[in-house]
């Protein structure tokens, strides 16, 4: 098989090529874009979307969808934020530097890990409600999660009583949590990688992970072979919820801010990332590496657009380019697939 043929057959390789092309294109206009540090930055910036897309993969695999994730992010970050704000204390540390006394105020609060676990717990609870409605209440996924989106945003308004959480209300460890670098990569990247590997292991090597595929591929068959399809659907939604909670914390730490309407509209990017990554929206098919690359492609587009140095009607062009690139990527996928099918047909001997 020629290299090109292989490339076309392998969606992941194709996507990688598309991403490299995008980077080169933008880099041509603005060399700063293609610099290593900027690419590291993009990876960090896209980590949140990748984490969400990984969760969305699970949900899409079982043939469901979740459009309430941005609301879940808001609610879980808000819950953790309020806890943090209310427990915030100042620790005055005095240090002597060459005889000059400096007062360093470090804000401490509930330990970071507790906050993260709390947020993930809140997220998982929201996912649980989604899953219960969909799997046991037989409410269609779009309807259930659309309704829950309204409700959860409303809840985040209620728990915050209209107040936002600002940097001044955040503990130092929380603010710094997404600002550490390790081996040149942001902590978000490491958290994303950890999530990625865990999920990769889960859906490749564990039975309950593989069953996500089985349920989405043929629900009836899964039922007949004894898979609890309802519980599997529920599990997918809980995973999504927990990851949305984690993503919400990263988002809040990164933005230094939690508002009750945080991340509104983010879900559409996440779904688009999955689709570009080759996940079937009707369930049963999708590779985890594809999702990673799909999200990365969107991250490159979003970051690249700000670096294109467009002038004039730039705002419009940014929006249009974004829509167009997504559409083109998805449509190209369709053509590649059709080409593949045609090739298979041609190879048949009649």
């Amino acid at each position, binding site marked *: 098989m020629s290299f090109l043929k292989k490339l076309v057959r392998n969606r992941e390789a194709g996507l990688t090529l598309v991403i490299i092309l995008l980077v080169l294109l933008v880099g041509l206009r603005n060399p700063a874009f293609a610099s290593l540090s900027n690419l590291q930055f993009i990876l960090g910036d896209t980590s949140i979307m990748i984490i969400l897309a990984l969760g969305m993969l699970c949900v899409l695999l079982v043939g469901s969808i979740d459009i309430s994730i941005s609301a879940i992010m808001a609610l879980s970050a808000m819950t953790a934020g309020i806890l943090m704000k209310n427990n915030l204390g100042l620790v005055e540390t005095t240090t002597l530097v060459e005889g000059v006394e400096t007062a360093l105020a470090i804000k401490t609060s509930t330990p970071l890990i507790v906050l993260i676990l709390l947020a993930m717990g809140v997220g998982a609870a929201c996912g649980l409600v989604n899953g219960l409605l969909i799997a046991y209440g037989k409410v269609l996924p779009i309807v259930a999660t659309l309704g829950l989106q309204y409700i959860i945003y409303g809840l985040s308004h209620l728990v915050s009583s209209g107040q936002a959480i600002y940097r001044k209300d955040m503990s130092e460890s929380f603010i710094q949590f997404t600002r550490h670098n390790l081996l040149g990569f942001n902590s978000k990247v490491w958290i994303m990688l950890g999530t990625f590997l865990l999920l990769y292991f889960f859906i490749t090597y564990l039975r309950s992970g593989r069953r996500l595929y089985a349920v989405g591929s043929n629900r009836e068959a899964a039922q007949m072979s004894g898979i609890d399809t309802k519980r599997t659907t529920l599990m997918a939604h809980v995973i999504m919820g927990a990851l949305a909670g984690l993503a919400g914390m990263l988002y809040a730490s990164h933005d230094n801010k939690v508002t009750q309407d945080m991340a509104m509209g983010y879900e559409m990017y996440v779904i688009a990332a999955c689709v570009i990554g080759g996940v079937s929206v009707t369930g049963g098919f999708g590779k985890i590496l594809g999702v990673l690359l799909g999200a990365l492609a969107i991250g490159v587009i979003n970051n690249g657009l700000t*670096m294109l140095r467009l002038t004039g009607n730039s705002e419009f062009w940014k929006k249009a380019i974004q829509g167009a690139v997504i559409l083109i990527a998805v449509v190209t996928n369709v053509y590649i697939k059709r080409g593949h099918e045609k090739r298979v047909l041609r190879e048949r001997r009649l």
Partner: protein
Amino acid sequence: AEEPITIGVVYKQSGNPFFEAGVRGFDEASKELGFTFIHNGPADSSNEGQIQIIEGYIQQEVDAIAISANDAAGVVSVLQTAMDKGIKVVSWDSKVEAAGRNLNVDPSVAQNIGRVQVEEIAKQIGYEGQIAILSAAATHDNQNTWIAYMKEELEKPEYDKIELVTVVYGDDLTDKSYQEMQGLINSYPDLKGVISPTTVGVAAAAVAIKDMGMSGKIKLTGLGLPSEMADHLADGTCEAMFLWNPIDLGYAAAYASIAMVKGDITGAVGEKFDAGRLGEREIMDAGDGGTFILVGDPFRFTGENIDDWKNVY
């Protein structure tokens, strides 16, 4: 007993702390003047949402509507029907077109708002180098007016060595503003200063500057919320920024509304009324066919005075 006067307050977005502070101004005035008020804003800062709220107020037969409009033209029709029913309409913070209001309560003169920010950034970068503007959305009237005045100010000879390289838009979304700011830093290595005349933008810009290790290398000013900017002012990422006092703004709007309902003023040029602790205010010609009063000049927040304000709004 006579029924108390009711004011219906409409703001741009529910849960936005700036307007929470504005409501505190109404609250203060209501204690002094003895009126009641209800307040609401759409969840998604939309024009349609504001219309819903206004229609609800008309239904409740309020005496006056005090609105900070998302779309200056988009609420004119519905406010006209309100005025037809004898309801007084006062816009505050963000004005309604002249045809849809009796009076506008302007936080400050747009020209001043543009000017002080240019003066500030020029001083900080030493009157030399590249600067950029990080705005909200290209569709926001007040943003565009301020930016126009900034450009006008930059024409002056003392700013000859300052180059405005670009205006970018963060849509008042934190993450988009952050990305745009990061894009500015990467795209213009010689960038010296950034003006962001929007509370969301200036806060996101401060975070981006800090994250990219550019604190002190790129100066930042703009219009920011003290509570949100407190840490950035304290550590010097942003040396100084501006904002008017939303509490005073609400307070003045409340006094203007009551004066109008009571018939003390009609909204005509030259009329004067007592605005409580703010003193007397005179109605002036806004130049758009309507009239306005002025509340005050933008306040300059710095690391020194921020502690007094960060818990206020």
